[in-house]
């Protein structure tokens, strides 16, 4: 992973000192709240329902074990002993005091972390495939490019006050595990017919009030032009994006208003002025940064008894078998894998982990992995580069922690925003509903039988729970002061990104779990062969599901 050098260290320390000064000026009244708000947002600090919330950046979802322990320490010393991992691979702390935030930023800087630009109308955390560098299907490791984009976008002076937030994601796998189709800019690494690797560039995707799948603006962008092309897109957006209405200020609105062809023309016109200029990344700098992500050296595994051991245990231990079926991901090295640690369970807000759990996971990553942890879009954690021979021992450790009972990609693996329990913007709670739904599908065998099914819950139209991109999406609304929930079907986040469709009138919270069950039962009744829920929905259309919902 990227290693900070002296300049990087000095940078985050100075940034923390700068924020300390800004807080002092705010408390003394030298900065008004209007002036201070963008400044604190650009250090990830929100004012939420009960307290301030701090969103710490986890660049493209990569953490060292030391950093994860550092975050545990912050949870313990400055918060209430837990943190929440988000759909943008960051971590949030919910009980922060403004006056303590400078100390928190100092502490973060001591282990090479920060909260720079995790909020505000600027370029946010660049996200990527949580299996990057370990995936079996990737063209090359996208993280070097993520780091290049991160540095280019950090304190970029021209783009610190955009019309609205700006989110970039990079994917290099055949499967898009970074939801690039729902980002302001999505970059998919591709190979052209000459065998060169470059970027397919998508623009104008997003969730929120007006969900949109990103459209293609460039078929093949050579690597050397990455930064100049991004500058051109950002410049067109900075000048032409709407600033009169925050609900119409994202780039997706601009792309739709202009049409993708006119938008492309505007970007190319701008790009022609700046390509081959100082904006381009020098080869030496590119090599320096990409060099940090050379393929990892993995110890050779000589003993292959583990294959038989695992196979035997799978036959005798149902819990282990279910865990192996869903939480183990293919690695480019045949003796290795990546392991999902599901942060989804009864009585656990999706994506939450306690300080103790974070430390235990850091220990496991060091003992059995390569000391690295990844944060996933689905609000889980992954330990990459794990020798398969360790899987039984890792399962035992996780089971003792109560972290072995959830399966990636099944109905229990819900994405949920914090909702009205924490968030100032929310209309309804999401966490109690997630818990109720998990309880209804509490049987692991049943979950396995249902198969791959993405269920996402958002507490308001801002859609931070990505309900638009789910097989089953749930949107909390406020109906005359009462929490109600709308159901959508047919969303997808990957290669074939799609926005779900609303089924009909909303439900009261108490009726939602049964409604979800009716949808699932309809699928189980009608599915053919080994169809997934998504396949059945495509084949049958929404009619039978709608009918059972409102029967």
């Amino acid at each position, binding site marked *: 992973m990227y290693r900070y050098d002296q300049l990087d260290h000095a940078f985050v320390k100075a940034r923390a000192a700068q924020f300390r000064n800004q807080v002092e000026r*705010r*408390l*003394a*009244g030298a900065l008004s*709240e209007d002036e201070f708000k963008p400044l604190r947002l650009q250090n990830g600090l929100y*004012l*939420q*329902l*009960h*307290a*301030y919330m701090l969103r710490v950046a986890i660049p493209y979802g990569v953490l060292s074990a030391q950093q994860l322990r550092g975050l545990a320490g912050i*949870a313990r010393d400055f918060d*209430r*002993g*837990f943190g929440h991992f988000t759909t943008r691979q960051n971590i949030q702390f919910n009980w*922060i*005091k*403004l*006056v303590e935030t400078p100390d928190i930023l100092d502490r973060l800087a001591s282990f090479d972390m920060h909260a720079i630009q995790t909020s505000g109308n600027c370029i946010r955390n660049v996200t990527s495939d949580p299996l990057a560098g370990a995936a079996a299907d990737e063209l090359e490791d996208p993280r070097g490019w993520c780091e290049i984009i991160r540095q280019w976008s950090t304190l970029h002076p021209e783009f610190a006050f955009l019309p609205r937030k700006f989110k970039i994601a990079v994917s290099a796998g055949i499967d898009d595990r970074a939801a690039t189709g729902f980002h302001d800019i999505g970059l998919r690494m591709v190979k052209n017919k000459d065998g060169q690797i470059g970027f397919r560039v998508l623009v104008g995707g997003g969730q929120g009030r007006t969900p949109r799948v990103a459209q293609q603006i460039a078929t093949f962008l050579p690597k050397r032009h990455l930064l100049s092309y991004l500058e051109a897109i950002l410049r067109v957006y900075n000048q032409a994006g709407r600033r009169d209405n925050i609900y119409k200020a994202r780039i997706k609105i601009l792309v739709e208003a202009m049409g993708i062809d006119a938008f492309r023309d505007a970007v190319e016109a701008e790009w022609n002025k700046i390509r081959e200029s100082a904006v381009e990344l020098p080869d030496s700098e590119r090599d320096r940064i990409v060099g940090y992500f050379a393929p990892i050296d993995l110890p050779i595994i000589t003993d292959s008894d583990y294959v038989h051991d695992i196979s035997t245990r799978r036959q005798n231990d149902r819990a282990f078998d279910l865990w192996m079926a869903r939480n183990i991901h293919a690695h480019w090295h045949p003796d290795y894998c990546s392991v999902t640690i599901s942060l989804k*369970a*009864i*009585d*656990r*807000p999706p994506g*939450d*982990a*306690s*300080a*103790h*759990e974070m430390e235990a996971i850091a220990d496991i990553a060091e003992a059995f992995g390569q000391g690295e942890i990844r944060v996933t879009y689905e609000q889980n954690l992954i330990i990459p580069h794990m020798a398969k021979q360790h899987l039984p021992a890792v399962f035992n450790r996780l089971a*003792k*922690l*109560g972290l072995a009972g959830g399966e990636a990609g099944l109905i229990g693996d819900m994405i949920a925003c914090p909702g*009205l*329990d*924490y968030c100032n913007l*929310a209309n*309804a*709670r999401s*966490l*109690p509903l997630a*818990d109720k739904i998990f*309880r209804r599908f509490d049987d692991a065998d049943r979950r396995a039988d249902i198969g791959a099914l993405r269920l996402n819950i958002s507490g308001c139209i801002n859609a931070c729970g990505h309900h638009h991109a789910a097989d089953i999406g749930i949107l909390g609304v406020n109906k*005359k*002061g*009462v*929490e109600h929930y709308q159901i959508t079907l047919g969303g997808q986040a990957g290669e074939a990104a799609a926005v779900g469709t609303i089924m009909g009138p909303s439900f*009261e*919270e*108490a009726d939602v779990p049964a409604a979800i069950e009716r949808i699932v039962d309809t699928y189980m009744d009608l599915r053919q062969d080994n169809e997934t829920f998504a396949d059945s929905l495509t084949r049958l259309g929404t009619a039978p599901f709608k009918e059972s919902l409102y029967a």
Partner: protein
Amino acid sequence: MPKTDDIILTANRLEDGVVLWMTGKLDWTADRSRAAIFDADNAQSAHARAEQDAAANRIVSVYAVAVNGKADQSAREMIRAAKGPSIIPPADKPACGSISLDRYFHPVMRRTSDVSLRSA
């Protein structure tokens, strides 16, 4: 019977984000039960005092909640009054060992957690 234009004033403390309500003495309290109801005659001085306190960098995000059984007993205001989420996050549970499957919510919410938060 409160009149439809009666209000409660609420805000967050600037330095730590703690939720506050304005009392009858035009001071701020973190205790929801001590929130004063201001009628049309008193609302203006309450608002003026709130603006003063915001300008004095004590509070932020002031807003008025109508005392009408809906707004003041909305899910949002009840959660704010309870000072915490209606579901217990992982830190409050035992660090190791089996996790009880008995459902429980934050004590203040326990009575109402299974009921839709309708107005009275």
